[in-house]
């Protein structure tokens, strides 16, 4: 209790205020509103759990949750594979390794909206032209079906985020003591054995972080979704975040959207925390 001096509170006040005004208070308000019929201007009645009951009966919302889950599953796996893969490439003492790091990280510096439009052009125009030139059917009609829309968002996300995840893996890979690897080499361990038994366990903390980041990011994705497919065709590629925004601002159903947001918050936090808990248990200390 010693540190609760005047100075302590003075330094803390701006942060607490900021956090309170921007995060905590709106969150509490939102939670309360989700039990009313609030339309953005006024709430006239307290309707209890009605919003929560009807959202579980709504196909569109359930579809978007299922779509997002599928997406998160695929994206998390691919992102970590690509991230680790890239990190292994750029830590191999290549001449071009710092150039490569910059190049791989670059897509992450471009905003999601812009990337969405760039990839929209690639998927529709460039893929279309390739399809017409080569006669391969698979290149035609991208983003015009739910399936290609799904893979479109997966490809876009991997391209954007893999560089970021790579940076995290690089930090851990470079911390692995060289003598361990050397000793293993002398003992005659093959490259794959060295990776499996030394490198992999030692970068486990990076997995925890990367999984957490990619998982929560994959669930909350919005701008890429908006600019690439805008949920189309027929709202089949609509992620939860987008579904909630549409409910709130185009259906004008604020309280209902708020209830969806609360459920969404619960799902994301449960998934992310469970994942952290299990990965933490697997980590090894040096």
């Amino acid at each position, binding site marked *: 209790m010693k540190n*609760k*001096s*005047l100075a302590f*509170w*003075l330094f803390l*006040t*701006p942060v607490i*205020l900021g956090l309170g005004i921007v995060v905590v208070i709106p969150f509490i308000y939102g939670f309360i509103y989700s039990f009313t019929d609030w*339309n*953005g*201007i*006024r709430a006239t009645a307290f309707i209890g759990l009605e919003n929560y009951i009807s959202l579980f009966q709504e196909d*569109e919302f359930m579809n978007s949750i299922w779509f997002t889950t599928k997406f998160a599953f695929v994206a998390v796996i691919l992102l970590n594979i690509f991230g680790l893969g890239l990190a292994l490439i750029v830590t191999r003492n290549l001449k071009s390794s710092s150039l490569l790091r910059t190049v791989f990280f670059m897509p992450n510096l471009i905003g999601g909206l812009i990337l969405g439009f760039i990839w929209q052009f690639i*998927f*529709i125009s460039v893929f279309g032209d390739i399809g017409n030139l080569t006669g391969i059917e698979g290149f*035609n*009609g*991208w*983003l*015009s*079906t739910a399936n290609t829309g799904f893979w479109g968002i997966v490809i876009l996300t991997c391209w954007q985020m893999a560089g970021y995840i790579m940076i995290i893996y690089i930090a851990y890979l470079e911390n692995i003591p060289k003598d361990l690897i050397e000793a293993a080499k002398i003992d005659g361990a093959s490259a794959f054995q060295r990776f499996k038994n030394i490198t992999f366990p030692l970068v486990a903390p990076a997995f925890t972080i990367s999984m957490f980041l990619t998982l929560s990011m994959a669930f909350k994705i919005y701008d890429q979704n908006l600019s690439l497919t*805008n949920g*189309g*065709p*027929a*709202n089949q590629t609509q992620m939860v975040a987008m579904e909630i925004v*549409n409910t709130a*601002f*185009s*259906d*004008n159903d604020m309280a209902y959207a708020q209830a969806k947001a609360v459920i969404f918050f619960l799902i994301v936090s449960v998934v992310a925390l469970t994942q952290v808990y299990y990965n933490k248990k697997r980590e090894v200390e040096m």
Partner: protein
Amino acid sequence: MQKKKFYTGVASALLASTVLAGCSFSSGSGDSDSGGSEDQVTVDIFQFKVEFKDQFEELTEMYEEENPDVNINVKTVGGGNDYGQALKTSFSSGEEPDIFNVGGPADVDEYEEFLTDLSDTEAADAALEGTLSAVDRDGEILGLPFNQEGYGLLYNKQVFEDAGIDPESITTMDDLEEAVQTIDEQKDDLGIEAPFALPAKEQWVLGNHLANTFLATEFDNNLNTAYEADTVEFEQGDQMKRFLDLQADYSVGPVLSLDYSQQVEEHFSLGNVAMIQQGNWVYNTIESMDPEFAESNVGLLPIPVEGQEGKLPVGVSNNWAVNNESEEEVIQASKDFLDWMYTSEDGKKFVTEEFKFIPAYEGYEDQNIADPISQEVYEYASAEETLGWVFMGAPTSWTEDSLGSAMQEYLGGDIEWEEVEEKAISGWESSRQ
């Protein structure tokens, strides 16, 4: 210990209050008497049309010069969704504007308690037949229309001429189908890719505009009828399907990933297609791509509807509303300003020449309507050869989320047309319970 806690509390409270004071909000509800004499009236306008922000501000300056005791502040927040959101925020935070925009009857209902009756204004008297239906509540006029907008099939005159088709002769769906086939047969000679470009990625193109053409008759061209209807019948569903099929079959593809800007810019403006289903609002875009083409090569053709041949869907997309919680003199000043904008000579000139609006008011006969597409729309409107914009009266987001999305599924081959109608009907009925 007790004492220390007390000081801590006081200190934090003090600090908190200074921080809060730093970002104190200015009360913007029109009654601020910032500067000037006591008679100065300040009117806060909160509007959504980004496209004419600069011109609109110019107009308010002109008005301020003529009326030195009126001070007008304009705030513009753009794009459909953002505006609604921002307007809500300003109402729930108490920073209510004096003049703001309301769209269809759903908006009017939502803000009804804040809307002033404008039936005593000159502009309300001058408003053209039918343009007030969205804002008319038992004789009270709760808003004034911005302008009129109309859509149909925009066609490339040159392509039609080369193909030997007289656009005047197309009055029925049969004629249109025949013309499309004629064009399609010789598309290589004409140098086009396909007769149509259907942006099926945009749910509003399908669910709002295309569908409205074939729903208008069912609701007597009146959006209030649609607004009060418990169900929708799809009386002309067969024709709707036929027209959608026609566009989709003869469009550059794949239609489901084709969007509005590709349709207008890449395909129509560059002469890749012969026709698109759009309205007067695309003029500026076409002009920015190819001014000459926009000026002389774009024609407008009504979408053929049985029994309603030669009629163009024309409607009002937005209205000015005056906040009735503002002070008396602010309300009066707001009304005066709106009157001046739409009925004075200077205002009229500005509305047509600078805003490039298709006026929704009488008395514009001697004004030059800026572009050829708008000119045609105004001709249809003054001749009363119009269909209503009944989609403005459909349940909120029904046109896009329910009908538009079902039409996309139909185009994707997932469902049959009957299911489109079923889905749309059940969507309408469930939101009107």
